[in-house]
């Protein structure tokens, strides 16, 4: 199975489009990823990312009275004999660097009574995929989630 472009969707980053965005990605994942655990992890990481972007876009709408656009694309890529499922997002919201790999980690040992609610989404993104990256390119927040998948045909 060689790499292929699976499609993209672009719409205003708002809760009205939340279902469309997530359904787009989860349907492609279901079609392309055989492994149930990997499929779930990809869906989880994608949902967390899309939700974070839409949440931040809501703040932009409230404070700057402008609509943020979000483009979500999915593809499979073959690199070094390995097959990857890749989800990429691109939005023109406020510049936000999640500092993947260097942010203060969620304290998973902390007692529940002291647990802070924030940060779980970004933590789950990092924990769910093999590679995650962020770039600020030409005024766009650009995220890339990659998970290695098994390169055999999905059963019909």
């Amino acid at each position: 199975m060689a790499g292929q472009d699976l499609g993209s969707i672009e719409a205003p980053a708002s809760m009205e489009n939340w279902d469309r965005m997530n359904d787009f990605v989860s349907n492609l994942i279901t079609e392309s990823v055989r492994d149930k655990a990997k499929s779930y992890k990809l869906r989880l990481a994608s949902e967390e990312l899309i939700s974070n972007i839409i949440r931040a876009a809501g703040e932009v709408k409230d404070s700057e009275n402008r609509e943020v656009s979000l483009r979500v694309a999915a593809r499979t890529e073959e690199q070094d004999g390995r097959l990857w499922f890749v989800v990429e997002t691109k939005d023109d919201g406020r510049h936000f660097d999640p500092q993947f790999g260097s942010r203060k980690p969620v304290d998973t040992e902390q007692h529940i009574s002291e647990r802070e609610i924030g940060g779980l989404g970004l933590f789950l993104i990092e924990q769910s995929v093999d590679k995650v990256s962020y770039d600020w390119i030409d005024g766009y927040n650009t995220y890339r989630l990659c998970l290695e998948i098994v390169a055999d045909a999905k059963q019909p």
Partner: protein
Amino acid sequence: MSLTIEIEQGDIHVTITLSGDVDTKTAPELLSKLTALELHALEQLRLDLQAVEFVSSAGLRAIVFAKQKMPHESALYLIGASEQIVDTINKTGLAQAVRIVSSVDDI
């Protein structure tokens, strides 16, 4: 995907049976139902997740909220959670705050 929530009051416990996905869109509804309970006086809360396919961080936050509001010595059971949901709970360290069981018979 949607979420259905059924609440059953027992003698010393409340059972919330969920069906569907607990995600960014549906978690507020669960949070609203949890807020309406007298969590501060609840000895035992049972979340039946046998028919739940997906839980995101929004769902986990609702669970954390419930446990934080309950008495220190109380118990919050997660019943029949899928392997993937249990894995997420373990990853985030929330397993220390809840009791994960396969069925209500294990309570």
